[in-house]
C-alpha cells in the first residue's frame, strides 16, 4: 500500500519533457488521483542514457549519481524514475558504487561531494504493483474490458536480474497484474522482454524497424488490440516507427501503443486528451464496451 504522507522524489528524465511528454502528463494525473505524492527533484540533469555508458563509464556514473545526490540533499529517500533507461542507469551506478569503493571514490571526486548512496529507486511497475498495490482497483471508475493488452516490458525493466526485484526476468507478470486491475484482459505472447532496438532508433533505423515489427506482429498474432509499455524509448520505436513499417510493408497492420500510466488513467476516468493519448502516432480507439459504460455513467 502507498504510505500516506510519504513523498516520493520524482526523476522525470529528458524524454518526459519532450518526445514522451504524454507519459509525464498521465503519470502526474494518475498519481494525483491516487494520492501518491511526487516531488520533482530540483535541478535534475540527464542520467547520461545509453550514449554515456556506451562510451565513457566514469561520465555515466557521475551523471547518474548527481541526481541521486540531489535527491539525498533534498531529503528524498525514494526516487521514482518512470523512464526505463533512466531507472536502469540509476540502479546500475548505485550498485557499482556499492560494490566497488574505487568507483564510489571516483564519482565523489567528480562531483566534489560525498554520497551516502542509499536512495531507493523505483520504476512505474514497482510504484503501482508494490508501493500502491490495490489503489487502482479501489479508484477505478471505468472497467477497461474489451481491451486485449500485450504487456511489453522490453529490456531495462527486467534486466539485469541481480539488480531488479522482478518475479522472473524472462517471464515476468507484474505489469499483467496492474493491467488486470484496470479490468483489461491480457494476452499470452512471446516478445514481452525482447529488445526493440532502443537507442539505435535514429542511427540504425533499419535495425529498430525490423526488431519492433517482430514485436508488433507477435502481439497481433496473439490477438492483442493494444500494446502497453512503460518506457519512452520503447514507445517511440513501437508507435512512431509504425509509420515507416507502413511504408516498407504495405500489409502492415497497425496497433496502438499506450503507456501503462495512460491505461490506468483511462480506468480512473480521465479523458484521452487529459492523458495525452491524442499525441500518439497510431490512433487509439476505445472499444465500444468501454464507451457504452461512459455513456451510462
Amino acid at each position: 500500500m502507498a504510505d500516506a504522507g510519504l513523498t516520493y522524489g520524482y526523476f522525470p528524465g529528458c524524454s518526459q519533457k519532450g518526445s514522451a511528454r504524454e507519459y509525464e502528463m498521465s503519470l502526474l494525473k494518475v498519481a494525483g488521483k491516487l494520492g501518491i505524492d511526487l516531488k520533482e527533484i530540483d535541478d535534475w540533469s540527464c542520467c547520461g542514457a545509453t550514449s554515456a555508458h556506451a562510451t565513457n563509464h566514469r561520465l555515466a556514473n557521475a551523471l547518474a549519481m548527481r541526481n541521486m545526490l540531489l535527491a539525498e540533499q533534498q531529503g528524498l529517500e525514494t526516487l521514482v524514475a518512470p523512464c526505463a533507461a533512466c531507472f536502469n542507469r540509476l540502479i546500475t551506478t548505485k550498485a557499482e558504487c556499492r560494490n566497488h569503493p574505487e568507483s564510489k571514490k571516483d564519482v565523489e571526486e567528480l562531483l566534489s561531494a560525498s554520497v551516502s548512496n542509499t536512495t531507493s529507486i523505483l520504476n512505474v511497475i514497482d510504484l503501482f504493483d508494490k508501493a500502491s498495490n490495490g489503489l487502482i482497483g479501489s479508484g477505478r471508475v471505468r472497467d477497461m474490458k474489451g481491451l486485449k493488452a500485450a504487456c511489453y516490458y522490453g529490456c531495462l525493466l527486467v534486466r539485469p536480474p541481480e539488480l531488479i526485484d522482478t518475479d522472473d526476468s524472462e517471464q515476468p507478470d507484474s505489469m499483467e497484474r496492474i493491467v488486470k486491475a484496470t479490468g483489461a484482459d491480457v494476452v499470452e505472447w512471446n516478445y514481452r522482454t525482447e529488445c526493440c532496438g532502443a537507442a539505435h532508433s535514429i542511427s540504425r533505423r533499419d535495425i529498430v524497424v525490423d526488431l519492433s515489427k517482430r514485436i508488433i506482429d507477435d502481439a497481433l498474432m496473439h490477438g492483442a488490440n493494444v500494446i502497453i509499455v512503460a518506457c519512452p524509448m520503447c514507445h517511440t520505436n513501437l508507435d512512431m516507427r509504425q509509420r515507416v513499417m507502413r511504408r516498407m510493408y504495405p500489409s502492415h497492420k497497425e496497433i496502438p501503443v499506450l503507456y501503462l500510466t495512460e491505461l490506468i488513467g483511462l480506468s480512473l476516468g480521465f479523458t484521452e486528451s487529459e492523458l495525452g493519448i491524442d499525441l500518439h502516432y497510431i490512433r487509439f480507439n476505445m472499444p465500444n464496451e468501454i464507451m457504452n459504460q461512459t455513456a451510462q455513467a
Partner: protein
Amino acid sequence: MKNSFRNGFHVLQPGFGPAAPAKTASDEVYPNAAHSYIAKEVAAKTFQDVNLCYQCGKCSAGCPVRDYMADSPNKVVRFVQLGLEQAALNSTTPWLCAGCLTCSTRCPNDFNLAKFMDAVREISIEKGVKTKEKEISSFHEAFLRQVRLFGRSYEAGLVADYKLNTLRLLQDVDSAPGMILKGKLSVLPHKVKDRKTIKNIFGKTTHKKKRNG
C-alpha cells in the same frame, strides 16, 4: 536472483579432474594472452575476468542484433581472451550492441557481456580507433554534446547536430513537423541551473584522443 555455481563450487582444486593438456604450438603464439593490454584494460573497467567466458555461445544465440553483426558477441570475447587487440577494437560488434542485457542475464557463468561491450567500445575510443559504424558513434557524440551544453538532452539540437555530422539530412524529415505540432520536440532547450558541475564532470572524464597504437 540467478542461481550461480560461481560461489566456490566450480573452483577446481589442484589435482582435481584431468591433467591440463600439453601446450600446443598455437598456445605459444599468445603466451600471456590473459595478461595482454586489452584483457587487463577490460578487466579494470568491468571488474570481471574475461576468462569467465567459456565460449558456450548462449549470448550470441539470444542476441537480438546478432543478424546485423559480422563478428558474433562471443567471438569478440574470444579476441580479448587471446589478446587480439586490433581484432577486438576494430570489430563493429560492440557498436551494434544495443545494451539490452539479454546476454548478461542468460550467461551460465555470470559474465556480464553487455558491460564487456561497453568497455571494448570505450577502449577503442580512447585509442582513437574510428569505427565503421559512423552513424552510431556520431549519434552518441551528438547526444553527449547536448548534455554537456545544457545538462539535459535537447532533442531538437541533437537531431540537428546528428544530421549535420552524418549528412543524413533527409532521414525522418517528415516526422519533425508532426513532433513539433504535438509539442514533442521543444524548440528551446531545458537548461540545468548548475551547469558548472556538469561542465566539470565532462572536463574531468572526456577521453583525450590518442593516435592509434
